[in-house]
C-alpha cells in the first residue's frame, strides 16, 4: 500500500475554480440560447436545444480553462535521486502484428542510448509479442536474433510470444509481471512505436527512487516522423498545444494523475498489488475485458494510496501517430468503446473522486459531438413544432406587435463558442512568442501561420470527426464490439476511391441534412454550410490530407533538429532494411 498523502489544498481550489468557471460559461450559453429560442414563442424544443448547448459548452469551456491553467502555471520542482541507479528496470515493448524490423530497430537505438548513460546494465528489454499472424511471428524471431547479435543483448533483451491473447495489451503486461515481475523494481511501459532516450529513462528511474510513494510516472510523448498533411498538422498541434493542456491538467490532477498506456514508468510491486484487472460481467462492448485499461490502472493505483503523476518537463519521449483521418478514426473507435465502457466503473468501490470524474470526462469527450449533432437536428426540426407567431398578443389592441429580432443573441452565442474554441490556441501562440518557444517552430511568423492554418484545417475537418465519433458512439450503444484491429503504421496515403469507401455515408448524411434544412428551415442553410460542406467534401478532404506534406508550415523542434535517438534509429533501420532481400530469401 502506498503512503497516504495529505490532500493538496491548492489542487482542490484549482479544481473547484475550473469547474465553477466551466459551469458558469455553460449556464451563460444556456440562458442566451433560451432568450434566442423564445423570441418566436417558447416550446419544449427550445429547452432541449438549450440543454444540449449547456452540455456542449461545458465541455468546450473545460478545455479552454484547462489551457488557461497551463498558461498561468509552471511545473513544480520534483525530487530526484542524483546518486547511482540501484534498481533494475524492465522496458516492456508489447507488439501485436507489428513490423519487427522497424520495432526492433527502435529497441536497438534505445539500448545504445541507454548504454551511453553508463547505466545500461540496470535496464532489460522485454519484447512481449501478442502477434497472431504466424508469418509475422516467424519474422519477429529472426529479427530478435539479429537484435541480440547487433546489441550483444543476450541476457538483457528478452522475447516472449503468448499463445493466447487473454486481456489484450493489459493481459500481456500482466502475464509478464506474473512470470518475471519480481526481478524488477520498475517497468517502463512502451508502445511498439515508442522511442525514448536512454537519458530520459534514467531520469524517470531517478524520480521514482526519490519518491517512495510514486506508483506511476507518465511522460508527455511528442509525435514524430509524421509525413502526411494530416499527420504533420496533428504533430504540430501535439508539440505546440499539448504541453500547455497537459500542464493545466497536471495542476488539477494533483496526486491522481493520468496513465496513457505507454511512455510511462511504474513501480512494479505497486502495479502488481493494485492493477490486476477483472473481466467485467456481461458481453462486450460494456462487459468483458477492460479496453481502456490505462485510465483504470491509474485509478486503481490512486485507490491503493499511490501517487500517479505526469511530469510534462520530461523531454526525449516520442511516439508515432496515424497518418490519415481514417486510421485516426479507427483508433478513435477503439478508444470510444473503452471510454464508454468506463460508465460501468464510475461507481466502483473506493475510487478517488477525481478518478471518477476522469471517467466522466473520457465519456464526455465522445458524447459531446453527439450533443452537437443532436442540437443541429433539433434546430432543423424546430420550425415544425414551433407555435405560430401571435402578432396580436394584447387584447383589443388594434395594431400588430412585431417580435424583436434576437439574431444578436445567436451571434453572441456563436462568438462565445468560437472564443472557447480558438482563444486558448491563440493565447498559447502569444505565450510561445513571449517565452521564445516559437524558435523551435520556425519563428514567430511561421508559428502564427501554422497556428492559423491548423485552426482552419481543424475547423474544416471537425464535422468529419463529429460524424465518425457519433457513429462510434451509436455502434457501441447498439452493442457492436470493435474487436482488436492491429494499428496501421507507415505511409498512409489514401486514394479518393479508398476515402470514398470509408466516408460515402458522411457525404449522404451531409446532403440529406442540407435538403431537410432547405425544406424545413431555409434561413438555417447558411449557418449549416460550415458543417455540411465539409461532410459533402469528406472523401476529397480525407484523400487530400493523407498525401505527403511538402509545406514548411507545421515545422516542429524535432524536424528542425532531430534528436540523436531518431538519427540513430534511422541509421540502424537503413542498415537492417539493406539486409532485407537477403533475409527474406532465407
Amino acid at each position: 500500500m502506498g503512503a497516504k498523502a495529505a490532500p493538496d489544498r491548492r489542487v482542490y481550489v484549482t479544481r473547484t475554480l475550473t469547474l465553477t468557471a466551466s459551469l458558469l460559461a455553460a449556464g451563460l450559453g444556456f440562458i442566451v440560447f433560451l432568450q434566442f429560442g423564445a423570441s418566436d414563442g417558447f416550446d419544449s424544443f427550445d429547452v432541449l436545444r438549450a440543454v444540449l448547448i449547456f452540455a456542449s459548452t461545458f465541455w468546450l469551456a473545460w478545455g479552454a480553462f484547462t489551457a488557461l491553467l497551463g498558461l498561468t502555471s509552471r511545473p513544480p520542482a520534483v525530487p530526484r535521486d542524483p546518486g547511482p541507479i540501484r534498481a533494475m528496470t524492465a522496458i516492456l515493448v508489447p507488439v501485436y502484428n507489428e513490423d519487427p524490423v522497424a520495432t526492433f530497430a527502435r529497441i536497438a537505438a534505445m539500448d545504445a542510448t541507454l548504454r551511453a548513460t553508463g547505466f545500461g546494465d540496470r535496464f532489460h528489454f522485454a519484447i512481449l509479442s501478442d502477434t497472431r499472424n504466424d508469418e509475422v511471428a516467424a519474422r519477429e524471431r529472426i529479427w530478435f536474433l539479429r537484435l541480440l547479435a547487433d546489441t550483444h543483448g543476450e541476457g538483457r533483451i528478452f522475447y516472449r510470444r503468448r499463445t493466447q491473447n487473454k486481456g489484450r495489451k493489459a493481459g500481456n503486461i500482466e502475464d509478464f509481471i506474473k512470470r518475471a515481475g519480481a526481478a524488477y523494481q520498475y517497468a517502463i511501459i512502451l508502445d511498439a512505436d515508442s522511442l525514448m532516450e536512454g537519458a530520459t529513462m534514467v531520469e524517470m528511474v531517478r524520480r521514482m527512487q526519490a519518491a517512495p510513494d510514486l506508483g506511476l510516472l507518465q511522460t508527455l510523448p511528442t509525435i514524430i516522423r509524421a509525413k502526411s498533411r494530416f499527420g504533420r498538422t496533428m504533430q504540430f498541434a501535439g508539440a505546440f498545444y499539448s504541453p500547455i493542456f497537459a500542464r493545466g491538467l497536471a495542476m488539477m490532477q494533483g496526486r491522481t494523475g493520468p496513465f496513457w498506456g505507454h511512455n510511462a514508468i511504474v513501480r512494479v510491486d505497486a502495479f502488481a498489488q493494485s492493477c490486476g484487472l477483472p473481466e467485467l460481467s456481461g458481453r462486450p462492448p460494456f462487459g468483458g475485458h477492460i479496453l481502456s485499461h490505462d485510465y483504470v490502472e491509474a485509478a486503481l493505483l490512486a485507490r491503493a494510496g499511490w501517487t500517479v503523476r505526469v511530469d510534462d518537463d520530461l523531454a526525449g519521449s516520442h511516439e508515432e501517430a496515424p497518418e490519415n483521418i481514417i486510421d485516426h478514426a479507427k483508433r478513435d473507435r477503439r478508444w470510444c468503446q473503452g471510454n464508454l465502457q468506463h460508465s460501468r466503473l464510475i461507481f466502483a468501490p473506493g475510487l478517488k473522486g477525481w478518478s471518477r470524474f476522469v471517467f466522466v470526462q473520457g465519456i464526455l469527450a465522445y458524447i459531446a459531438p453527439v450533443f452537437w449533432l443532436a442540437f443541429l437536428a433539433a434546430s432543423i426540426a424546430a420550425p415544425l413544432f414551433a407555435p405560430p407567431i401571435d402578432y396580436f398578443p394584447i387584447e383589443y389592441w388594434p395594431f400588430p406587435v412585431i417580435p424583436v429580432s434576437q439574431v444578436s443573441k445567436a451571434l453572441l452565442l456563436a462568438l462565445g463558442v468560437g472564443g472557447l474554441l480558438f482563444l486558448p490556441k491563440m493565447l498559447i501562440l502569444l505565450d510561445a512568442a513571449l517565452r521564445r518557444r516559437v524558435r523551435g517552430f520556425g519563428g514567430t511568423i511561421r508559428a502564427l501561420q501554422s497556428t492559423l492554418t491548423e485552426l482552419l484545417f481543424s475547423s474544416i475537418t471537425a464535422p468529419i470527426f463529429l460524424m465518425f465519433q457519433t457513429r462510434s458512439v451509436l455502434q457501441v450503444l447498439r452493442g457492436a464490439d470493435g474487436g482488436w484491429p492491429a494499428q496501421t503504421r507507415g505511409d498512409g496515403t489514401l486514394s479518393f476511391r479508398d476515402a470514398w469507401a470509408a466516408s460515402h455515408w458522411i457525404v449522404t448524411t451531409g446532403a440529406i441534412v442540407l435538403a431537410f434544412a432547405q425544406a424545413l428551415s431555409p434561413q438555417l442553410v447558411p449557418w449549416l454550410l460550415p458543417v455540411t460542406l465539409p461532410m459533402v467534401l469528406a472523401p476529397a478532404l480525407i484523400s487530400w490530407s493523407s498525401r505527403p506534406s511538402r509545406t514548411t508550415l507545421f515545422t516542429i523542434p524535432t524536424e528542425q533538429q532531430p534528436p540523436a535517438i531518431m538519427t540513430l534509429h534511422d541509421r540502424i533501420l537503413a542498415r537492417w532494411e539493406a539486409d532485407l532481400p537477403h533475409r527474406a530469401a532465407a
Partner: protein
Amino acid sequence: MMQVAKPEQFDLDRLAEQLGKLPDAPLAMPVQELETAPHASGLLAALRPRFARLRKAGH
C-alpha cells in the same frame, strides 16, 4: 517470404525461444474488485436499445 516449414527456421525458432526466455521471477497480481454488483449495468449500457445487436464493426 519466410518459409516457416524449413528445418533451419525451426532451429532459429528454438534458438530465439531459448535466448529470449524471460527471467523466472513470478510475482502475484491479485484481481481487483471493480464491480459493486454482478451484472450491474453502466449508465450508458442502460441506454442501449435491445432490438438491434451487431457482432463486429469497423471502418
